[in-house]
């Protein structure tokens, strides 16, 4: 504890003249779970995508595990990195998407071991061992040779989590991992995430699951219109919000 895993400093991002992130600053310590809440279109996904440099930023800095993401600083100039070096940085950051984005032409196990073999250079036998362990960890030990189309949404999302974990990331990003799921499947996915949090994984979770945020988050931040409106412990933000906008949002979702 105490080591900063994520240090975002006044991050700005625009699409054309639309400034989607207007100076987001936050930190996440190693082992912490941060939940991001906020209305649709407020920039939550965009912020996550900036963290692993799927989007380049227009201002500010992002440090993940003490590394400046996507840029190399020399004096007062930031040089954008080569795609190869950015790819290397992304290996330390796992990401789980709302729509799973599993590779449909590969079985669950192949999905999990694709990156360790192709990117990490792990030998196939070892990778398979690791893949089976991870599938067991997410409760899908017997589904390794199923294609994604043969799995339920909840099972697909758990495979997607196993796939992200296979690169042994130091940080996991979740973008509304349960909002595309039928209500009865949400629990299984959240359980896997709780397990991860308990095991000490550093996580940033965009979610509408207030129960999860209350139970697991160390910190909750409420974002609206590209700005942080309120940040604090789940109790502070969810139970005793200070800002009118936070109150209005919570009234709507609860």
């Amino acid at each position, binding site marked *: 504890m105490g080591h900063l895993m994520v240090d975002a400093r006044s991050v700005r991002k625009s699409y054309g003249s639309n400034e989607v992130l207007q100076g987001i600053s936050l930190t996440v310590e190693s082992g912490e779970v941060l939940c991001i809440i906020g209305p649709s279109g407020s920039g939550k996904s965009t912020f996550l995508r900036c963290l*692993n440099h799927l989007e380049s930023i227009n201002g500010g800095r992002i440090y993940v595990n003490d590394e400046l993401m996507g840029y190399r600083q020399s004096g007062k100039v930031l040089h954008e990195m080569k795609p190869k070096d950015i790819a290397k940085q992304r290996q330390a950051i796992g990401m789980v*998407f709302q729509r799973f*984005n599993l590779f*449909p032409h590969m079985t669950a196990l192949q999905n999990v071991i*694709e990156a360790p073999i192709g990117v990490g250079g792990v030998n196939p036998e070892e990778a398979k061992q690791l893949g089976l362990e991870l599938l067991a960890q997410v409760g899908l030990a017997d589904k390794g040779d199923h294609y994604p189309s043969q799995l339920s949404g909840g099972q697909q999302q758990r495979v997607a989590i196993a796939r992200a974990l296979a690169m042994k990331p130091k940080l996991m990003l979740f973008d509304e991992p349960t909002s595309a799921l039928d209500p009865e499947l949400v629990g299984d996915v959240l359980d896997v995430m709780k397990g991860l949090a308990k095991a000490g994984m550093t996580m940033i979770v965009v979610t509408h699951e207030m129960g999860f945020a209350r139970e697991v988050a160390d910190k909750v931040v409420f974002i609206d219109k590209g700005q942080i409106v309120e940040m604090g412990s789940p109790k502070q933000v969810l139970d005793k919000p200070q800002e009118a906008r936070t109150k209005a949002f919570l009234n709507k979702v609860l």
Partner: protein
Amino acid sequence: MATTDHTDYGDDVVAVPLRHPSRWIFGGIATVLLLSFIWAVYSAKSIQHEIVAKFLFDPRILQGMLVTIFVTVLCMFIATILATLLAIMKLSENPLQRWLATGFIEFFRGTPLLLQIVFWGYLGIIFPQLVLGVPYTDIVWLSGDTSDLIPALLAGVIALSLNEAAYSAEIVRAGILAVDSGQVEAAKSLGMSGGQTMRRIVLPQAMRVIIPPMGNEFIGMLKNTSLLQVIAVAELYTAASTISSANLAQIELLVVSGFWYLAMTTVLGFPQRALERKFGRGFATVGGRAAPRAFKVGRR
């Protein structure tokens, strides 16, 4: 009016699949038409069957067929690789690459194939000498007579490959565009490079969309090789017309070559179906075979 029987017969019931009478009607009509066509050809006075039979397995014809197959496979191989490169270039963020690819595609689609074949075939007349080296210096890596360096067969392969690449590039591009952008994001987020993402994630999924129209292109290529007759490449059609210009049995030799073209295009369907199955794995398909039936099927 039909009534519904709710009696529970336990496991003794039999499910009858939906009948498709229209399939039988269409099948019947098609069979009649096909038989009458075969009969018309068979009974035509102008076609001498002994001559057809005699040349069907003539060594020159079979040799020509080998050349046709060789040229088709080689050209499709080269064209597919080029087409993939062109498609990736056309989707690139680099404007120079985009323009180059677009220019290439427009040029080779915009001029008749026959013209391109003649151009490559008679390149020797336009440029009698080919020199590969650094202009305005004495450095020369390769030089010689064009007609020696590019014999007719090579000219034909170049012409057909480049033309085909231009058409196939758009097919490959459509296939790549059909892959969900979330796939690329997922691959990137795992740390995969652009090349790895293309090879391992995007192209295998694009294949599903690419293969059916590429099957078409393959068949088109097989038939287009007959155009190489104009530069005297000894493929199937050239072989047949060489024979018929000597014995004047034009119609019979057309039937012979037509038979073999049809046979070859028919056989091509098999590898195509195998490929479609291979790259269709993991995808639920529409219009494919029915899913395994859950319960007993019988007739009543």
